[in-house]
């Protein structure tokens, strides 16, 4: 499609209503997702508390856990920075779509994908370190590893899915599908990505720092 035609494009009334509905729907869906994470964070907190209360061998384990943790704190901080930066890129991508800046949209979406992949790579390194120290999940997991891997893994799954969605949005953006009058899909992807970022902010503090 020709770029100069962009401002003559119009959405039907039904399509506009559909876009608004999708935005409402996605917010409501996110509120539900938030409670899944609340459940997993709650499970993590309660598991940690129960491990603290238990016998000395478990306390020993907890001590080892914290040592492993401080070791990976630098890595996790970098990952946090990466995810925060990716959120900024998504904001810039949406701004570009609002200004009909196709190249900017594509560029910032591509940057978001790169950040998502870096985050997942960082998480893979972290998991490898933990597994090498004997914290397994699928075979003979301990209580703490259970809660930790389930919570962070579920979040990582969201980053993974978000990255896939971003690739899809990028593909469509390259075909000029989004313009100033119709970028709800980019906005909704943005909502998802920011939500994943927001949850990470909480996980970072609750799991790694407190």
């Amino acid at each position, binding site marked *: 499609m020709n770029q100069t035609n962009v401002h003559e494009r119009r959405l039907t009334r039904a399509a506009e209503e559909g876009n608004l*509905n999708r935005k*409402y729907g996605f917010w*409501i869906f996110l*509120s539900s997702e938030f409670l899944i994470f609340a459940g997993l964070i709650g499970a993590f907190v309660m*598991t940690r508390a129960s491990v603290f209360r238990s016998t000395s061998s478990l306390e020993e384990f907890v001590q080892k856990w914290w040592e492993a943790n401080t070791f990976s704190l630098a890595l996790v901080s970098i990952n946090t920075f990466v995810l925060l930066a990716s959120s900024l890129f998504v904001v810039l991508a949406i701004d570009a779509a609002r200004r009909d800046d196709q190249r900017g949209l594509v560029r910032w979406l591509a940057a978001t994908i790169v950040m998502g992949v870096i985050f997942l790579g960082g998480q893979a390194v972290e998991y490898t370190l933990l597994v090498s120290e004997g914290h397994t999940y699928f075979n003979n*997991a301990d209580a703490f590893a259970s809660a930790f891997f*389930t919570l962070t893994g579920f979040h990582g799954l969201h980053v993974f899915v978000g990255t896939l969605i971003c690739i899809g949005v990028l593909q469509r953006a390259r075909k000029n599908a989004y313009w100033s009058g119709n970028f709800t899909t980019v906005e909704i992807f943005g909502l998802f990505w920011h939500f994943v970022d927001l949850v990470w902010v909480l996980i970072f503090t609750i799991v790694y720092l407190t």
Partner: protein
Amino acid sequence: MASISIPVRSQDKAKSGLLGWLATVDHKKVGLMYMVMAFVFFIGSGLLALIIRTQLAAPGMTLVDPNTYNQIFTMHGTGMIFLFTIPMLVGGFGNYFLPIMIGARDVAFPRLNAFSFWITLGAGLVMSIAFLVGDRSAAAWTAYVPLSTSTYSPQSGMDIWLLGLILAGIGSTLGAVNFMVTIFTMRAPGMTAWRIPMFVWAMATTAVMVLLATPVLTAALVMLVADRNFSTQFFTTSNARLWQHMFWFYSHPAVYIMVLPAMGVVSEVLPVFSRKPLFGAKAVVISTALIGILGFTTWVHHMFVSGVSPAIERFFIFTTMVIAVPTGVKMFNWIFTMWGGSLNLKTPLLMCIGFLSTFVIGGITGVIQAAGPVDSYLHNSYWVVAHFHYVLFGGSVFGIFAGLYYWAPKMVGRMFDDKLGKLHFVLMFFGFNLTFFPMHILGLEGMPRRIATYAGDRGWAAGNLVATIGAFTIALSILVFIINLVKIARSKEAAPADPWEGNTLEWMIPSPPPEYNFAVIPTVQSDRPALDARNGGVTPAAHH
């Protein structure tokens, strides 16, 4: 412009035959499919209840062995809650009437809506196939750990049960998203907050509770699946209460998910059949919203004997007693709606009276056992069985039948036999009280719930026999209902668009409604648009 008119697209025209049902995205057809599905599971789970009652009719009966007995009450509870009550009220009534009552042509996401139904049906099939081919879960619908862990429930039926529950949760969550958006954005012009019908308010609150409670259960279910299959240790260490917290964080709100829509039905039926406006409509709406919020703050009262700290226990005793207040407000609203009205004593009204008189007992017993010290005596006794059946049968099921009789003419376009309906009501009302009232006494006498049989010298025989007679009376009443359904199907008497002189928008369109619901979207000018139309008010006629 007073109203917006959208031309009906040709591809939206109904396909005929079976494919028309399988491929439909029409909210009314989806709603009917939910209702049919739910009713089938109602019959199935009801038959399981009859086996339970037969086994307990006399001391020492050996109709089924204890393990089978456990499997049967597990499936009875699961089926009645997840595959009957919630799909019937939320999926069935919600889908069919919520869009019509707010003057919309469909829900916001019709295809997602159909998907919700099929995934819920999938959940039901997964659970019932696992039940029918054996290898069943026997850990009760609460699936407490460690009973439900791989150590004590090694059978794969437990995993299938968990999977089914996860699916049912996804189905109802997506449905709730759909309802919320529909209510937010698709109301007819003029339908301001206080003009939204009571049933729709109830559904909105229910949708919020589904949205915010279900995910926590889903998380717990996933964790239990991981525990059973991946060797994680969420529930195998010192953490047994974690399951109870997360389970009841869903399952206490679930009680309101099952009761609020029924309350919404009652709030619609009572004004119509009392020929009076709903008494204190705003109070009904506010108390609905309060129940919705407070419903999330009471779950620990299921865990008073599981060992919670005294401060937490006191807090939850308080909240549990407080939630009785908005419920009480509603009771008075309904009673004063009928007070001085010219009562049209048809089956829907009788069912509502059944609702009021039984639900109030369930509410009061709830306040009694909210007190921690009392609860530690009553916990896991037949008293609790009596209490929650007074809430969920006396509340939800009477509400469901009130709604079915009220809306049947609208949905199928024919009238039901009111005499048979009254017989149904009388049998069900007496059968219900016969079944569940003695259980209060049995509980106080110390009969624990979930036991497969009992010794003759316990003195529980008389109460149990009465309860069993009551259960078969309920079964008989359901048989009468089915005969009525057959008569409706054969009836030639077409129902008028508005047989009851109703208040809400569904009575302004033909029975059954056309696929597009409204030829012209009506403009709403009060909380009783159909009444306005009958009185020659300003609202234009919707069709023809």
